[in-house]
Each structure stands twice: as structure tokens, then as C-alpha cells.
């Protein structure tokens, strides 16, 4: 369980989030949604130190997360940031192997087990065929999946992905959602930021809805729909259709 207790967060020197308390349950998929600029990314970025927590505590399975050494944090929780302006000129396999850095550190050499984890991560993210190609020669979608594989290679129980579907086409998004469900089956905790509310409603066990730098609601998708929270926050009307395969949501 990942708990934020009365957390205040600065981005640079500017206070952005004030007194945030929210809980992400273990083994579930939780999606953070909210209008642009509501502080979703800032909230999650304090997990890798890109935004600074000025007061309050973050507990990971009851332990003080912020007191952990950086490398230990990265062994427990992997975080894939949102926008990457830097495109490494590395083969995909090398990039994915970098995901083992928190486990290997400066000196230890990779073992058979590390190589197996890297291979599994590439297979799960469907980038194994591109293993020897340089990341800068690949399309945005495949590159995104290569970074995703790197995050998987960290082999953490908690996986945080900030807008992972941005660069993906429709079939890529569908494949991605299946990967997320697989991770859940493995018993991992997944925390997402998504812009596609329909997707968020379908895949998530719980939603955290943010508005104006506050947590507006944290509940199951069903309850959020029943209480019309999404409609209020995003100023839309939701129409729900269902057939044998599942539910579909339309926004007006």
C-alpha cells in the first residue's frame, strides 16, 4: 500500500500541492485523472524526486518511503516519467538493461537472472524483435514500449506510469492495457495517469480524481460514475453503453 499523508509538494521553489492525503491499494490498478494542470504529474513526481516534498509523509507498505536511499526506492517502485525529450542512441536491449541499474549499482556485473528479467521485460512489452536496433531509429510508439520495458526490468512491486499511452496508436493502446492487466495478475500494484477517461474507467480498480490541485475523489469507477464526480470535474456528460463484451463510455 502506498499512502500519501498530508503531503505538501514544491515544484522547483513554487508550492504546488497542499495537504494531499491519498492511498493507493496494493495489487490494484489505480488511475489518476483530472483536467490539465491539476497537479497529477507533480503528485507522482515526488516519488522519483523530480518534485520536492516539503512536509508530510509517504508510506510504502508502512515504511517511510522518503527516508529510503534513492537506490532502494528504485528497487521497490519504478516510475516512468511523462515526456522524454532525450532520445538515447542506444540499442533497445542496452536501454532495457539500464532498468537493472538499481539492483546492480556501480560495480556488480549482470548475472543470468538479470538477463532473464531483461528478456522477459522485452517480451512483455513486445520489443524483443527490436532488441538490436537503436532507439533513435524507431517510431515513437515502439520507443515508448522500449522505455516501458526498461521500467519493467526494474522488477518492482509498484509500477507508476505517467501517461504511458500518449504515443501509442489504437492497437498499441489496446495491447498496452492487456500488459497492465498482466502485471496486475502477477500481483503488482499499478498506478497510472491517463487522459482517456473511458480507458481509465474500463481498466482501473480505483480512480483518484484531481481538481484544482486537490483530490476531488478517490473511489471505484462505479461510485465515481454514480456520484457524477467525473461529470462535475470535467464538465461533461457521460453516456454509458454496454454489450456482451463490456462497457463503453461516451462524453458530450
Amino acid at each position, binding site marked *: 500500500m502506498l499512502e500519501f499523508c498530508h503531503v505538501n509538494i514544491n515544484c522547483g521553489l513554487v508550492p504546488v500541492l497542499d495537504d494531499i492525503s491519498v492511498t493507493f491499494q496494493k495489487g490494484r490498478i489505480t488511475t489518476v485523472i483530472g483536467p490539465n494542470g491539476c497537479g497529477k504529474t507533480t503528485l507522482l513526481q515526488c516519488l522519483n524526486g523530480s518534485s520536492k516534498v516539503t512536509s508530510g509523509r509517504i508510506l510504502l507498505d508502512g515504511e517511510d518511503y522518503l527516508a529510503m536511499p534513492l537506490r532502494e526506492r*528504485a528497487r521497490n517502485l519504478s516510475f516512468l516519467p511523462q515526456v522524454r*525529450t*532525450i532520445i538515447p542512441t542506444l540499442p533497445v536491449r542496452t536501454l532495457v538493461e539500464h*532498468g537493472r*541499474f538499481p539492483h546492480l549499482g*556501480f560495480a556488480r556485473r549482470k548475472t543470468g537472472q538479470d538477463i532473464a528479467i531483461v528478456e522477459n521485460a522485452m517480451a512483455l512489452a513486445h520489443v524483443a524483435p527490436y532488441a538490436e536496433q537503436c532507439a533513435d531509429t524507431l517510431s515513437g510508439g515502439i520507443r515508448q514500449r522500449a*522505455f516501458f520495458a526498461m521500467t519493467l526490468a526494474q522488477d518492482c512491486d509498484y509500477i507508476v506510469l505517467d501517461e504511458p499511452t500518449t504515443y501509442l496508436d489504437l492497437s498499441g493502446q489496446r495491447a498496452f492495457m492487456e500488459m497492465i492487466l498482466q502485471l496486475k495478475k502477477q500481483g503488482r500494484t499499478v498506478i497510472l495517469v491517463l487522459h482517456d477517461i473511458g480507458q481509465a474507467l474500463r481498466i482501473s480498480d480505483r480512480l483518484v480524481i484531481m481538481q484544482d490541485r486537490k483530490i476531488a475523489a478517490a473511489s471505484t469507477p462505479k461510485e465515481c460514475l454514480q456520484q457524477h464526480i467525473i461529470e462535475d470535474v470535467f464538465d461533461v456528460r457521460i453516456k454509458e453503453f454496454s454489450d456482451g463484451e463490456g462497457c463503453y463510455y461516451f462524453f458530450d
Partner: protein
Amino acid sequence: MRKKISFLVLLLILCLFSGILLGSVPLSPVRVLRCLIGLDRDSTTYILVSTVRMPRAAGACLAGMGLAASGVILQSVMNNSLASPNTIGVNSGAGFAVMLTLMLGGSYTSAVPAAAFAGALTTTLVIFGLAYMADSSRTTIILAGITVSSFLSAGINTIKLLDTDIAVNLTTFMIGSLSGITFDALKFPAAAIIAALLLSCLLTKPLNILGLGDDVARSLGLNVLLVRMILLVLSSVLSGCVVSYAGLLSFVGLIVPHICRRLFGSDARYLLPCSALLGASFVLVCDILGRVLFAPFELPAGVLMSFIGGPFFLYLLFKKKGGRRVNA
């Protein structure tokens, strides 16, 4: 990869030997070899080899290694493919410090390299601070570098004009030259350069992680600020010590890492040692050409470097225009 590295080592050995063999006074290879293994200690060849040619070749070798390695580090740390000790003004910072120390009467052996390092580090930190505060693009960093660089060059010129007795030939210092190096003057910078090279070879893994960008590096549990500071200090030691005895050699720190990126990829575990090896060979070749082409007149190594390096840099810029830009 092993083949390519052994080729670079062989190339360097060949260049070192040619550096000792070739020059305005031609020497016979057999005699030089005999001198190198310690025979003929009284011959003129021995004196020439041990007091002139050998320190010069060693100086060129270390200059190339230091500048190329410094370039690799700066490019990764700043995530900027145009960064190098020259383009971001680090060399000028070191040069300014050298001139200032000489004006104040510092001795060549220890004070000058230390001052050069301090100058290089200060400039690096200023440029990096500017880039960090402005959260700026790679162009801004280069522009800031050019500005700082010309500011410091003005300082160098002022010192020279104020103190005409200064023990440095300004023209050769600004261009970069390896003539007149002695083992005594090389002692301290050489030790520092070798130590910094070994240390940076130990840090290639974090250097790779840093090359992925700050956000990703942090997510992988790297202490971004600490590692970056250590690497910036190392790159300042490398380029500062070179400037202290060779002057403002340009282009090595920019071009050699680029060639090596093409040949060996961006993985710093290979890129750093390969760049150091190739950089050493490159400076040696330029120095040899400068001595041989118009003998008995001598061109400073820096002149040849600019002649070769300038067009090559343009080639890099234009070649990339059509394709994807390398951004690491």
C-alpha cells in the same frame, strides 16, 4: 568491439613512435629504437629523444586523451551533443586562470595546473548554473558558452597587453601548441589527467544513466546532482590540466567523441576509453604534421586541428540536417 579497441591501441602506439621519430631533424628508426630501450645513452639522438621528442609525444598523447574524455563527459552530463570543453567556454576559463597566475608570478610546475583546473571548474559551474536556471535548450547553453568564452578571451588579451613580460607566447597559447614541453612541466598535469581518466572510466555506468535525462535517471535511483557534480569536476580536471601546458587546443573534445559515437555507439563503457585513445592519436598526428609539413618551420598543433576539425564539424552539422539529430 575487441578488434576495434585493439586497432585503436595499435594506432596510438604507431602514432607515439612516429611522434618520436619524425620532426625537423630526421632520425633513423633503428637508432630511436635503441635509445628507447636504453642504449646509446651518450648519442645526440638519445638526448633529442629523451628531452624533446618524448615529453612532447607524451604531452600530445595526454592532451588528446584528456580533451576527448572531457568532451564525452560534458556531452552526456549536459545532454547536449554540441557540448565540449571548447564550445562551452571551459578551455577559455582555464586559459584565463593560467594567464592570471603567470601574471601574478606563479611557477609553471604546480600553481599553473591547479589554477587551470580552478578556472575550468568555475566556468563549467557557471555555464551549468545558467543552463539549469534558465532550464534552457542546447542552443542556449552553447550561446552562453560562446559569450563566456569571448568574455574570458578579452580577459586573456587584457592581461597580455598589461603585462608584456609574461612568459607565454600569446598566439601559440590561444591556438594550442605542444612545442617546448619538458617532463618537469608535465609531471603534475600528467598525474592528474591519468587519475581523472581512471576515475571517469569507473563512472561510465552512471554516465550512461545520466544520458537518459534527469527524470529517468532519478527513477532508476541515481543521485543525479551528486553524480553530475563529480563528473563535472572530473571533466574540469581533464581539460584544465591539458590547457595548463598545451594552451587552448580546439575541436578535439568535440570531434573525437562524435567520430567514436559513430564507430562504437553511445554506450559510455566503450565510448569513453575509445575516445581517449582516438583523441590521443589525433593530437599526435596533428602535432607531427605541424612539425613535418613546413620543416624547419613549425605550425602549432592547434592550427592543423582547426584546419581538419573545422570542415569536419561543418560536415557533421550538414549531414544531420536531413536525418534525425543525435541527441545524447
